[in-house]
């Protein structure tokens, strides 16, 4: 098992003929992800890489190929619209890689996705990978190994760093999920922790948070109440100054609860082993498993 994606994932790539969509479309196909369709308005009827049919709309792609998962690489100006379209077409899992969607657009997207019963991962995220089964997004497949560690993170390249630490020291992963660095996201830590707790293949969980908001504190409370599996955590931004946005739209310290120190304390109180640096991940996991 794994969470959210596996061999049964039938993927439609939104923006498959664009620069990012075509590059990562090929990467995902090379990894073995079951890419069943692409969508680019006006290019319906074409074939991508001679193997994947391109449609004008997501609804057509779903009707013709039974796609159940969509990944979005389209530019920020049209990305919110792409999420609406995927949810309306009955896609159950939508992954939005695109960075730069206005937060007010997301205040309208999220209730719509929720009403349609879909799950959104992102936006502004690297996607997710269940090593050896399916890779949806932009996480480099070659740094991952199949195994028993579940990884959930608000970051992109920092997630790669942690995965790299795990893989090179013999700890494979069940699924790695990048939930995104924006203030409003579709899937949060708690959704992923809950899925990992229920997944028979996952033996321990690594959660990577950062400054800004209180998602990590709520996740810590959830771990305390509901998670029996060992959890190891990291918080980026211990040296970040208050009031300044550290790259991610959501990474800003406003008030005491958004600081790294506050989050690390909340994690510790919930029984989560807290790393001081990324290289601590494997020793801490070994201690707990």
């Amino acid at each position: 098992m794994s969470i959210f994606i596996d061999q049964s994932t039938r993927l439609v790539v939104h923006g498959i003929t664009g620069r990012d969509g075509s590059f990562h479309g090929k990467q995902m196909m090379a990894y073995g992800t079951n890419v069943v369709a692409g969508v680019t308005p006006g290019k319906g009827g074409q074939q991508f890489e001679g193997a994947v049919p391109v449609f004008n709309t997501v609804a057509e792609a779903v009707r013709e190929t039974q796609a159940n998962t969509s990944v979005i690489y389209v530019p920020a100006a049209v990305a919110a619209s792409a999420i609406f379209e995927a949810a309306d077409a009955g896609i159950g899992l939508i992954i939005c890689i695109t960075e730069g969607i206005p937060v007010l657009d997301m205040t309208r997207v999220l209730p719509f996705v929720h009403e349609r019963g879909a799950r959104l991962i992102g936006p502004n995220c690297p996607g997710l990978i269940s090593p050896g089964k399916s890779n949806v997004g932009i996480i480099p497949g070659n740094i991952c190994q199949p195994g028993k560690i579940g990884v959930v993170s608000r970051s992109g390249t920092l997630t790669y760093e942690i995965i790299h630490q795990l893989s090179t020291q013999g700890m494979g992963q069940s699924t790695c999920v990048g939930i995104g660095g924006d203030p409003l996201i579709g899937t949060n830590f708690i959704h992923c922790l809950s899925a990992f707790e229920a997944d028979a293949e996952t033996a321990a969980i690594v959660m990577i948070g950062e400054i800004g908001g209180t998602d990590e504190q709520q996740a810590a409370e959830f771990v305390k109440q509901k998670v029996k599996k060992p959890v190891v955590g990291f918080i980026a931004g211990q040296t970040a100054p208050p009031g300044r946005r550290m790259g991610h739209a959501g990474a800003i310290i406003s008030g005491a609860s958004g600081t790294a120190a506050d989050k690390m304390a909340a994690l510790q109180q919930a029984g989560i082993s807290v790393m001081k640096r990324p290289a601590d991940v494997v020793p801490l996991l070994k201690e707990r498993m």
Partner: protein
Amino acid sequence: MNLHEYQARDILRRHGIPVPPGEVAATAAEARAIAEHFGGKVVVKAQVHAGGRGKAGGVKLAKSVTEAEAHAKAILGMTIKGLTVRKVLVAPAAEIATESYVGIIVDRASQRPVLMVSPAGGIDIEEVAAKTPEKIHRLAIDPRYGLLPHQAMTLGFALYRDVKQARAAADIMQKLYTAVYAVGASLAEINPLVTTPDGSVQALDAKISIDDNELERRPDIAALRDVSAEAAAEVAAREAGLTFIKLEGYVGCCVNGAGLAMATMDLVKYYGGEPANFLDIGGSSNPQKVVAALRIITGDPTVKAILFNIFGGITRGDDVANGIVQATTAFPLKVPIVIRLTGTNEREGITILERAGFAALTDMDEAVQQAVAKAKGKAA
């Protein structure tokens, strides 16, 4: 992007919210002319992106035209929290009966715009929230239906007993909510919302922050950016598509990805150093970005060593390596550089660097330790 008070007031006025008169001046003579127009008794307020203007001496009451000119002269050019004041707002001194707070912020927890009102206005709302949380009324607005009239009226009555004033406040809340979506604000607050002795309700001071992601589709709002109110290096970085924030330390950091950039700064501190900056070159594969990044870091005289930490994904190691070689050929480095390069096209990148005489590491901890040691060696 933060707007100045005078810009925020213009937006509110355009959305039909009653805002008392006032004009902006860049010189003491202009301030004098505006004061004359308003009859002499005016308040002169520094226009700067920093809180605590009053405490810093950036807000002064003038009883005469001459006094207004003198205040403007003193305030223009003064520094508040590291930022130089280049403009002042000159407005008639208002007579105030009561001060309240009305604000809208996009709330992460409820994933909705939240309207907050408090009868305790005129002071920092975070202070009110900390000391007397019962004085703050909150409402998460469902964006599918907007702010409903009865919801606004309920909050209007939370501020005023008088029905006319409550209705006026409710109308202002509706218009503020419309303004938030119209300009792409992540925060819009009126503090204080005042009543005057004759009973009218007015927005005396306003603060609006725009979501940077809105700027591309709103050129009129983007044009309000005041680059003179921002640090020069941060402006240069933004124009090059980088995110740069100056910090107090001496190890210059250049990283791909915001999370890894923060973790790198933290690791510099962990090994006894102090990071000089946050710099995220983003997920692109463009050597020119690396050149721009190095230009910014080397322009900072407090930097004693430069640390690259690149974990290639979309970013390719050979592109970063080419950027480093191009940049250091164009402007030779005066401080040591430590490069960590791993991930996509790692081998190609390291080969390019080694041919140009640079050593490249693949381990993050080792690279950070070396950079801290070299920075300290140089500093000693």
